[in-house]
C-alpha cells in the first residue's frame, strides 16, 4: 500500500504527467510526503499584539489570534515511512508566516513490539487529553481551545520517549507514559540530567452500536519547573517549582449506520485543572521572592455536524476559571495579569469541503479573554493537503 502511495507522491513532486506507479526505482523507497497549506483572512476588534488571557500566567508561544487582514498560517511539510521491519519514522517541519522554521515532530516509533506495546522516541505531541495530539489542520476550528492556550501554550510536545500499552481486551483500553525534557510550557528548559516533565494517561473507548462510538480519558502531566519566565506590565518574573495538570477528555461520534460520508455528528469536551506550587521571583532586575500556590481550571465543549458530504457546521464554548492564586509576600496588585477572572469565548463555524483534500472555513467568535475587553473575531480560512493521503486519528 505504501509503495503505491509513494508512487503518487513522486508524480506530484516531479510534475510528470504519466509514470508507471510500479516502475522499479530507488525513489520508490522515498518517504510519503505531504504538504499542508493554509491561509486566513482575519477581522478582529482588538489587536492580537496585545493578546493575553487574564488571570493566568502568560505562556508565550503561539496563542494569539492570527494577524489582522490577510495572513499565511503555518505551512506543514511532513515525511513519513517505515525505516525497516521494526520501526517507522515521521518528520514534520512547520514553516511560520514570519519565515521561521520549526521542527514540529521528529520521531521514530516501533511497528508493534507485540503484546500491545508501542514505543516512540523523539519529538512529538503528547497523547494527553484528546485534541493535543491532533495536528492543527485536523482541528474543527481555526484556533485551539482557550484551555489548551492557557494551560499548555497551545499544543504540548516534548523531546523524549513515550510508551503506550493496549490491553488485550475487546474494549479499547490504552495506558501510556511519557518522559521528556519538558522544555515546553508549562515546563521550562533546564540544565539538569534526567527528565524535566512526564505524563501518564489512560484512554478507554468502544462502539455503543454500529452508529455510535466514544472515547474518554484521564491524563496527568507533571513538570519540575526551573526559572520559567513571564513578563507582566513590562516587568520580568520567574517561577520555579512543581506544575501538575489533570485533563479529563471525552468524545462521542455518531453516523447513521456508521456511514459518516454524508452525515455525521461529534461532541467533544475536555476539562483541565492545574496546580502549581513553588517560588515566584518578582522583578528579576531587583528580585523579590516568595512562595507561590495556584489552582486553576478550564473546559471547552464543542459540537460539529456534517449535514451533506461537503458542508459542516460547528459550535464551541470555552470557559476558564482563574481559581485561587496565592503570591505570598508579593503584592498580587503588582502582577495585574493574575487578577481573578473567568475568561470565556463562544465560537461558531461553517466549512465547505470540495474534496477530502480541501476545506474553506468561516468562523465567528466573541472572545472575552481579557478583563473589560470583548474581541469580535471573524476568520475565513482555507486549508489544503497536497501529496500523499494521510490517515487521521479518531
Amino acid at each position, binding site marked *: *500500500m505504501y509503495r503505491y502511495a509513494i508512487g503518487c507522491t513522486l508524480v506530484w513532486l516531479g510534475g510528470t504527467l504519466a509514470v508507471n506507479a510500479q516502475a522499479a526505482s530507488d525513489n520508490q523507497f522515498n518517504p510519503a510526503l505531504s504538504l499542508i497549506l493554509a491561509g486566513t483572512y482575519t477581522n478582529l476588534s482588538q489587536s492580537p499584539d496585545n493578546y493575553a488571557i487574564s488571570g493566568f500566567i502568560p505562556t508565550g508561544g503561539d496563542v494569539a489570534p492570527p494577524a489582522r487582514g490577510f495572513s499565511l498560517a503555518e505551512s506543514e511539510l511532513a515525511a513519513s515511512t517505515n525505516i525497516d521491519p521494526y520501526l517507522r519514522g515521521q518528520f514534520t517541519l512547520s514553516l511560520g508566516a514570519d519565515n521561521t522554521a520549526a521542527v514540529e515532530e521528529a520521531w521514530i516509533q516501533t511497528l508493534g513490539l507485540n503484546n500491545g506495546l508501542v514505543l516512540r522516541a523523539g519529538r512529538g505531541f503528547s497523547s494527553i487529553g484528546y485534541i493535543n495530539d491532533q495536528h492543527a489542520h485536523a482541528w474543527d476550528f481555526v484556533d485551539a481551545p482557550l484551555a489548551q492556550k492557557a494551560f499548555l501554550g497551545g499544543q504540548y510536545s516534548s523531546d523524549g520517549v513515550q510508551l503506550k500499552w493496549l490491553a488485550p481486551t475487546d474494549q479499547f483500553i490504552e495506558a501510556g507514559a511519557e518522559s521528556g525534557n519538558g522544555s515546553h510550557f508549562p515546563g521550562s528548559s533546564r540544565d539538569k540530567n534526567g527528565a524535566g516533565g512526564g505524563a501518564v494517561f489512560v484512554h478507554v473507548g468502544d462502539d455503543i452500536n454500529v452508529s455510535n462510538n466514544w472515547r474518554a480519558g484521564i491524563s496527568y502531566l507533571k513538570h519540575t519547573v526551573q526559572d520559567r519566565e513571564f513578563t507582566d506590565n513590562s516587568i520580568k518574573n520567574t517561577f520555579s517549582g512543581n506544575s501538575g495538570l489533570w485533563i479529563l477528555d471525552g468524545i462521542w461520534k455518531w453516523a447513521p449506520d456508521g456511514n459518516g460520508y454524508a452525515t455525521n455528528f461529534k461532541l467533544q469536551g475536555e476539562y483541565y485543572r492545574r496546580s502549581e506550587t513553588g517560588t515566584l521571583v518578582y522583578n528579576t532586575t531587583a528580585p523579590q521572592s516568595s512562595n507561590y500556590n495556584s489552582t486553576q481550571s478550564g473546559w471547552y465543549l464543542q459540537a460539529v455536524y456534517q449535514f451533506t458530504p461537503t458542508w459542516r457546521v460547528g459550535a464551541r464554548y470555552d470557559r476558564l476559571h482563574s481559581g485561587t492564586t496565592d503570591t505570598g509576600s508579593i503584592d498580587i496588585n503588582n502582577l495585574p495579569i493574575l487578577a481573578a477572572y473567568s475568561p470565556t469565548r463562544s465560537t461558531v463555524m461553517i466549512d465547505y469541503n470540495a474534496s477530502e483534500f480541501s476545506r474553506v472555513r468561516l468562523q465567528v467568535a466573541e472572545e472575552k479573554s481579557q478583563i473589560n475587553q470583548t474581541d469580535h473575531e471573524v476568520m475565513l480560512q482555507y486549508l489544503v493537503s497536497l501529496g500523499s493521503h494521510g490517515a487521521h486519528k479518531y
Partner: protein
Amino acid sequence: MKLFNGKGWIVLLSLCGSTAPAMANLNVFACEPEWAALAQELGGDKITTYSATTAAQDPHHIQARPSLIAKARNADLLICSGAELEIGWLPQVLQQSGNARIQPGQPAYIEAAMLVERIDIPARLDRAEGDVHAAGNPHIQLDPRNIKTVAATLQKRMVELDATNAALYQQRYKQFSVKWDAAMAGWQKQGDKLRGVSVVVHHKLFGYLFNWLGMQEVGQLEPKPGVEPTASHLAELLQLLRRHPARMVLRATYNDDRASLWLAEHAHIAAVAIPASVGGDDQAKDLFSFFDDIMARLSGGRS
C-alpha cells in the same frame, strides 16, 4: 521527577508481559465483510472473524475508531482489499495496534487487491482527476473469479499461521472451490443476457463486475471519483444518454439514492441498487447469496 523512576517502568513492562494471548481460535480481522465471509468459509469454527466495516458503510470513509484498534491488537491475520481503499484509517489502526504480526510485509497481512489483475490503473496521477487510486480500482470483490484467487492465498496463510488445523483448512478450501466453481457457472449463465448492456454508475465501483459480465459502463454520476454529483454534470449525463441510451443506473446500497433516482426518472431507465458486500441487504447473507442477489437485481433491472 518521581513519576518515572526505574521501578515504575519495570512494573509497567511486567504487566504487559503477563498478557500473552491464549491461542484458541485464529482471530481474523477483515476490513470488509466479503473477506470476513471468505475467511469464515475456509476456517469454519476454528476461526473467529471480525469485519471492520459493514456493507452499509463506504470503506474509504470510516474512522480509526477505538474498537477497531482493540480488535487489531488481538488479530492473528488481517485481510483487506487494499490498493489505498482503507488508506484514511487502516495505517492508524495498525500503528496503534501494538501488534507486529499483522503489519504490512508480514505473512499475516493480506492485501487482496495485490493478488488479482487490477483494472483502472491511472495513466495520469493527478488529484485534479478526483480521488484516484494509484494502484488501480480497489473494489475487486464484485468479480467472483477474484474471490477464488484470494481464497487460494488466504487458505495458504491460514495453514501457515495455524498448523494444528492445516488439514481442516485445506479440506474446507477444496470444498469451497468446487462449490464456488459450480455457482460461478450458474451466475455466468444468468449473465449471458447482460452481455453488452450499457450502464451508468454512481461511483466507479463496479468495474470488475462489468469486466466479468461484459457489460458497458457509459458514465458516472460523480463528475470525478469521490466528488459529489452536481446538477450540471447530471444534465450533461442526461444529454449523453439521449444519444447513447443505457439500460440502468447502478449504485451501491450505501450510496445516496437522490442522483440515481433523478437520472432514472428523467432518462426513463431503471435505478438499481446492489449490495457492495455481504450483508448489504437482506438477501446477501454469505458470499454465495451475495452474488445470487447481485445477479437477480441486475436481471430485474433489465425489464
